[in-house]
């Protein structure tokens, strides 16, 4: 499975969108991981009374309404947003793959029930499910946020995996594995899952972009990452009253979101094209 994924990544690298997307992501990740110690403490408010100041040499992205360094906040916010997204997507992926495998492999009434449930769940827009789950908390712990986002995002993935499983269910190599006494579990993990690895990787990549936007939106509504922990969406929320007088307080966090999501989507596109060149 790792081998075929590696092959896919190599092929995706050939596309310019893939190259740029991957490079940008690596750069962003590096900055998110390594930069914070080099930057001023985002919580530091040396002279809060001064309020927001425009970009300058001391503060390349300016300062926000409490005179905190914007660059530091954007970078730390990026760290938070990326971690939330990656962890949530991993959770969704696992759940979705599990359900999809079981439904596709078992077939029959189990499949029917599971898919009916998935269809109904897909009818409820994800945002609303999250709103209903999150609105009751006073302060949402980050772990709970990740859990909640992760458990609401597996439905489409399960359909994807189920589709792949159905496609391969009755192929000779699967029957051979079963004839040799492999348990259902083993067959699913060793034979069926690896074949879904490619589409899963594409879905995961694009999923990260979706979650970043989702988490930013939730933070904008006050239901995501809680202040004073910086998050891109939260920063835009705080910048709202200053939008005319200090537009940089909103522009930079938003631009960070755009850059990150764009890179992720470009990479996802390239992976998709590598998987199925005719659709490029």
């Amino acid at each position, binding site marked *: 499975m790792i081998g075929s994924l590696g092959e896919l990544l190599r092929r995706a690298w050939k596309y310019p969108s893939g190259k740029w997307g991957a490079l940008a992501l690596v750069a962003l990740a590096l900055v998110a991981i390594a930069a914070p110690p080099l930057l001023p403490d985002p919580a530091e408010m040396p002279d809060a009374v001064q309020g927001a100041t425009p970009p300058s040499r001391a503060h390349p992205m300016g300062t926000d309404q409490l005179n905190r360094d914007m660059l530091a906040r954007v970078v730390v916010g990026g760290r938070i947003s990326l971690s939330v997204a990656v962890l949530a997507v991993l959770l969704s992926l696992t759940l979705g793959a599990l359900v999809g495998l079981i439904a596709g492999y078992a077939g029959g009434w189990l499949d029917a029930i599971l898919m*009916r*449930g998935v*269809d*109904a*769940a897909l*009818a*409820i*827009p*994800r*945002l*609303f*499910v999250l*709103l*209903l*789950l999150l*609105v*009751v*908390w006073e302060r949402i712990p980050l772990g709970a946020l990740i859990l909640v986002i992760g458990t609401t995002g597996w439905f489409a993935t399960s359909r994807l995996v189920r589709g792949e499983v159905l496609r391969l269910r009755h192929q000779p190599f699967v029957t051979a594995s079963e004839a040799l006494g492999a348990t259902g579990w083993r067959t699913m993990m060793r034979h069926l899952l690896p074949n879904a690895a490619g589409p899963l990787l594409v879905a995961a990549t694009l999923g990260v*972009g979706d979650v970043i*936007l989702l988490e*930013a*939106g939730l933070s*904008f*509504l*006050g*239901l995501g990452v809680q202040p004073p922990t910086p998050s891109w*969406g939260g920063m*835009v929320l705080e*910048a*709202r009253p200053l*939008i*005319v007088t200090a*537009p940089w307080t*909103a*522009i930079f*966090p*938003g631009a960070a*979101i*755009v*850059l*990150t*999501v*764009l890179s992720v*989507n*470009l990479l996802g*596109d390239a992976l998709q094209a590598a998987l199925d060149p*005719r*659709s490029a």
Partner: protein
Amino acid sequence: MIRWLLRRTLQAAATFAIAVLLLFVLMRLTPGDPLSRLVGDRDVSAAEIQQLRQRYGTGEPLLTQLGAFLAGAARGDLGTSIEHYPDRVTALLAARLPATLLLGGVVLFLNFTVGIWLGVRQAVRRGSRFDRWTGRFALAAYAMPGFWLGLVLVAFLSLRWRLLPSAQMTDPLLPADADALTRGLDILRHLTLPALTLSLTSIALTMRHQRAAMLSVFRLDFVTAARARGLSEKQVRWGHAWRNTLVPMLTLLGLWLPVLVSGSVFVESVFNWPGLGSLAAQAIAARDYPVLLGTAMLVSGAVVLSGLAADLGYVLVDPRVRPS
């Protein structure tokens, strides 16, 4: 044909019922006291509590609760708002629905005209600079959070340069006896920025779907055959090739509604557009659980309906799937 329609409608109803069930489960699973969710900070009398207990069945066995919940939903009774007490949720939803329909309708229209035209053009000029750059712009726009783009547009186009209004659907200073045309134009001016924001951030979906569908149809024999008959390039492109992309595009229509609805929560709230989206956003701030639940139910119903409409569309558009 009628039997097929009946069967599909029943399936859709079943899906919706399961969705409502899931929402109930969600409500029960959420930590905290369900009663406080329904009451909030309000000062409630004992009689009211008793009424709520009955209505939502809190404190009763789970199945009874479910029954009460479903019965209420079937009756069209979605409870009472906390923030706007004693307004009923259904009344609030009904009041806000038209504004969202207007905004949503315009965005849908823009997406499925401009988006389609661009997607087709991209496919025809595959690999060209137009194709590549249009794709990149659309992707960049898709990466923008609706609330951020909305804020930026408001900041510059409304507040700084005073080109367009910054909030709401109508000008509160408009005289009461203004004629329909003035009123209509006023609404149009207010509609521009929110519609632009929502359309820009979602047009990539339509464009990409259309482009991919056209590319796969171009490969098919009957397109060459149509050219061989001496039909004009326009006829071949639209009358033959594009006509065969209607099925995948209808599928997109079914998937598109959740995207629109989610996006409108943010955009309506930024522009203070008096629709369902801003209602939901306000409900969040006020922790008005009944309103959120009611909106979720309404929206789920709409999504199921759009799926049904898409199915009906397939039958109309593709003679091969018509049940004989």
